[in-house]
């Protein structure tokens, strides 16, 4: 019984907005506890160095703590199930050796952050500086100073993903195209950095850790493991979180250290990361190298793809999943939405003296999409056909689904070629081509490019087992509780930090129970009040947590109907929930009245029915390998061949995420993701120099997209409900960030085709900065001159 006003499919305005619009959100740094002291860290200024000694001035003793001062802390360990995967133990405070710039060595406690930093500056650390490993492809087999000496090389893991017969495809090919691609290292950079506030609660005999995290329950698991205390004595609270995007879905040394300090010092301690620390030490992302060869026929039908993927994963793996998933996901997703039959990907995850790599919106796939979508365009250029047509012709067709790609992804349903056509319509492709032909009065070159992808979402146990994951985030949970006055509380194990789940999850219960979402509260982010869940990441929360909410709500609905039927003196089969009541053949009884009976007047309960309206349910989708959203993104650019400056003139997304619970929120997620993808494409980069020094330490060096350089993002929808999920939902949180780098690079390629003809100028590295554009133009012109 869908309700147009507030049920599934309604663009219900968000419950979350009011507090933020009045500056009354509550982020970790906003929480005031009496007696709180701030902490600052002594961090390594060197990328690779042995620690000879740490000297704390006498007046600072008792306020500065090194690893040996906090013996209860155990090293962070990853337990990957993949054979051959190497997993270094990571002491949260480095004791013998520092392996990246910014690695924590000591922690300082003072009344204010400024004084804590003064203390940190008074600590003298003597280092023996070693050669830094910063070139992953060059140094993966070894280097003068290995990062983890006992390994014998710098490789976390190497693997091959294969399907079909790549040698046969090579022999059959009429056209062979080889390219190298590079996606540079970047930061997730939520606007609120990380923050931790930890204190002891003597009454409850527990340590309370407030953290700006996407995963409160698994953080509690980790704190228990690495501090060796029982989970019952740990409470984790993620209050309002100012953006996550993946980097806050991992355990950090600082969280362990703050909890240990709270146990040690018996007053609250607080760490509020500054932006420099964030750019230096919060999970970095991407940093992919590709070499890709496509084998095709004369029409551009791709017969096979051979690839080498190197992911530069930094010095340690982040708990719980370690460094392994980035390259593995890139390798398995590289065949994209295509019917490519023959495939080989050799992939390597490499340790370097850089900050650890972690998840960021898209995880692995923006790089894979960049590689395959650029190569699809190059195949089209090579055979002299329109990339739009070649792309659609190579795609899996709806009648072939479900279709398992050569990378092993089971694409469930949808009309992929239609998304290409719809995206071209949204951009008015004929109009763009006409403008391109006509030429710009200022000499800029117009280009248009497309990129498509299928996004695995809401994957359950089967997928994570296949990955060899250390933990299996295959389900979510919900406790649904109706209180004595008939109002409802949903307690869920996910964490909402901008996704609007306080609104959308209440829409699901509203749909199931026929009550106004204004009568429903959603509680999340607190291990005290919610059953175990994994948190919000991997485009999973709407499908997984929404499914759990649906199931818990139905348990309540059945009980409401039994009690309601008894009160109405009719058969439970004759009643249903709606309009805030249980409706019978002759009359109705309000949910508030039933709730009163279930709590305060149990003499009104039918025989055999227990009091309370309280149900806990878990949910895993019917298919453990995930349901696939898909989209085609299109970009129109104007490139100045004199300066290399790119203006993004237009951007469109044609997507299908199945049933949309709240289309307004879906479109918000798409636009936000796209702009992060545009950041990857054009602006965001953390370069490292040869000595392992990161060169982007402020937002003046690390450029994030602003309103001024962006067009409005257009969106068109296709609607193919999933068969394996509640209501046909598919996840969609990450997709927006996947395709923009490829679409924009293809548009730049299109714009520069005229320069240096017949070769054309290509930029195969993100971010596509003016410097890289000019270098590409220069190379193309030189190549053309030689020819």
């Amino acid at each position, binding site marked *: 019984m869908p309700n147009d006003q507030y049920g599934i499919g309604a663009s219900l305005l968000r419950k979350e907005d009011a507090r933020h619009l009045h500056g009354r959100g509550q982020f970790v740094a906003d929480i005031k506890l009496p007696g709180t002291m701030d902490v600052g860290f002594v961090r390594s200024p060197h990328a690779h160095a042995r620690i000879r000694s740490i000297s704390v001035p006498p007046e600072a003793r008792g306020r500065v703590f090194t690893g040996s001062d906090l013996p209860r802390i155990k090293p962070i360990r990853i337990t990957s199930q993949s054979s051959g995967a190497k997993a270094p133990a990571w002491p949260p405070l480095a004791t013998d050796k520092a392996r990246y710039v910014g690695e924590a060595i000591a922690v300082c406690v003072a009344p204010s952050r400024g004084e804590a930093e003064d203390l940190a500056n008074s600590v003298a650390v003597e280092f023996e500086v070693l050669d830094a490993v910063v070139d992953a492809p060059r140094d993966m087999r070894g280097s003068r100073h290995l990062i983890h000496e006992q390994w014998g090389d710098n490789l976390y893991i190497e693997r091959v993903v294969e399907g079909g017969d790549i040698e046969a495809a090579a022999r059959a090919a009429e056209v062979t195209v080889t390219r190298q691609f590079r996606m540079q290292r970047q930061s997730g950079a939520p606007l609120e950095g990380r923050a931790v506030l930890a204190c002891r609660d003597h009454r409850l005999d527990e340590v309370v850790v407030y953290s700006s995290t996407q995963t409160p329950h698994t953080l509690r698991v980790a704190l228990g493991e690495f501090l060796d205390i029982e989970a019952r004595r740990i409470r984790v609270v993620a209050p309002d979180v100012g953006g996550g995007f993946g980097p806050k879905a991992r355990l950090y040394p600082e969280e362990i250290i703050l909890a240990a300090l709270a146990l040690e010092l018996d007053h609250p301690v607080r760490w509020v990361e500054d932006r420099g620390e964030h750019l230096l030490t919060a999970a970095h992302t991407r940093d992919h190298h590709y070499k890709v060869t496509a084998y095709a026929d004369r029409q551009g039908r791709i017969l096979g793809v051979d690839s080498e993927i190197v992911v530069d994963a930094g010095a340690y793996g982040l708990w719980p999943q370690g460094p392994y998933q980035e390259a593995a996901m890139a390798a398995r997703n590289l065949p994209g939405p295509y019917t490519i039959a023959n495939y080989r990907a050799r992939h390597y995850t490499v340790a370097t003296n850089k900050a650890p790599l972690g998840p960021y919106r898209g995880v692995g796939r923006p790089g894979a999409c960049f590689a395959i979508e650029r190569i699809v365009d190059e195949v089209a250029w090579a055979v002299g056909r329109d990339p739009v047509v070649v792309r659609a012709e190579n795609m899996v067709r709806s009648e072939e689904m479900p279709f398992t790609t050569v990378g092993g992804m089971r694409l469930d349903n949808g009309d992929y070629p239609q998304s290409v056509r719809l995206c071209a319509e949204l951009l008015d492709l004929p109009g763009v081509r006409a403008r391109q032909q006509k030429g710009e009065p200022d000499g800029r070159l117009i280009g248009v490019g497309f990129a498509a992808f299928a996004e695995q979402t809401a994957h359950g146990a089967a997928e994570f087992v296949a990955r060899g994951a250390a933990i299996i985030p295959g389900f979510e949970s919900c406790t649904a509780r109706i209180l004595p006055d008939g109002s409802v509380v949903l307690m869920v194990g996910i964490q909402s930090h901008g996704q609007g789940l306080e609104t959308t999850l209440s829409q699901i219960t509203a749909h199931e129970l026929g009550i106004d979402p204004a009568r429903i509260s959603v509680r999340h982010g607190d291990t005290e009040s919610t059953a175990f869940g994994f948190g919000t990441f991997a485009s999973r929360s709407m499908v997984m947590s929404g499914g759990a909410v649906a199931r818990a709500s139905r348990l309540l609905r059945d009980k409401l109907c039994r009690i309601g039927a008894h009160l109405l003196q009719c058969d439970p089969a004759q009643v249903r929930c709606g309009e805030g009541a249980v409706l019978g053949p002759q009359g109705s009884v309000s949910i508030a009245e039933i709730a009163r009976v279930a709590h305060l007047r149990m003499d009104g309960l039918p025989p055999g029915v227990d009091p309370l309206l309280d149900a806990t349910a878990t949910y895993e989708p019917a298919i453990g390998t995930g349901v696939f959203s898909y989209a085609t993104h299109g970009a129109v650019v104007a490139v100045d061949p004199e300066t290399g400056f790119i203006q993004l003139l237009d951007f469109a997304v044609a997507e299908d995420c199945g049933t949309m619970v709240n289309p307004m929120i879906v479109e918000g997620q798409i636009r936000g993701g796209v702009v992060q993808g545009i950041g990857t494409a054009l602006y965001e980069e953390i370069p490292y120099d040869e000595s392992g020094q990161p060169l982007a330490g402020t937002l003046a060096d690390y450029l994030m997209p602003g*309103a001024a350089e962006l067009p409005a993002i257009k969106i068109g929808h296709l609607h193919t409900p999933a068969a394996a999920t509640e209501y046909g939902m598919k996840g969609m949180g990450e997709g927006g960030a996947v395709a923009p780098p490829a679409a924009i690079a293809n548009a730049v390629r299109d714009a520069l085709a005229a320069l240096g003809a017949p070769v054309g100028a290509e930029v195969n590295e993100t971010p596509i900065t003016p410097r890289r554009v000019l270098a590409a133009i220069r190379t193309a012109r030189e190549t053309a001159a030689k020819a």
Partner: protein
Amino acid sequence: MTGIHLHINGAAIVDDVPPRLSLADFVRERRNLTGTHLGCEHGVCGACTVLVDGEPGRSCLVLAVACDGRSVETIEGFAGDPVLAALRRTFHQHHALQCGYCTPAMLITARDLILRKRAGSEREIRDGLAGNICRCTGYTNIVTAIAEAAQEIGKEAANAQ
């Protein structure tokens, strides 16, 4: 410690502060006005924007001692302000916020654009927001919300004349 007298959201405040204390830390830590957020603490992201003597300013770059004798408005102020009320309404209606971290400063900046009549077109609004980073929304809905609030305020002003 340095003694300062200033007005915050209309209330007279007297305090002793360390010379290096920023205005942002002063309002957040000493006055518990935590709607002013810190995103970079070096003047780029704009999340800490407040009004100082009526002008938008980066409270992370302004020292509290430099505000002696001045008047500061944070998101917790603006009681009865019609422009901010209109913006709150249109931000809500157009889903112009997600995590909410940039929102208070975005509202203060938008209000200033409207009052200075710099919100007449999409181009103007986008340029006017160049100093405020939002990592969640992609800005499209923020621009729409500001444009609508500007129109509402413009109509009200026209009717009042």
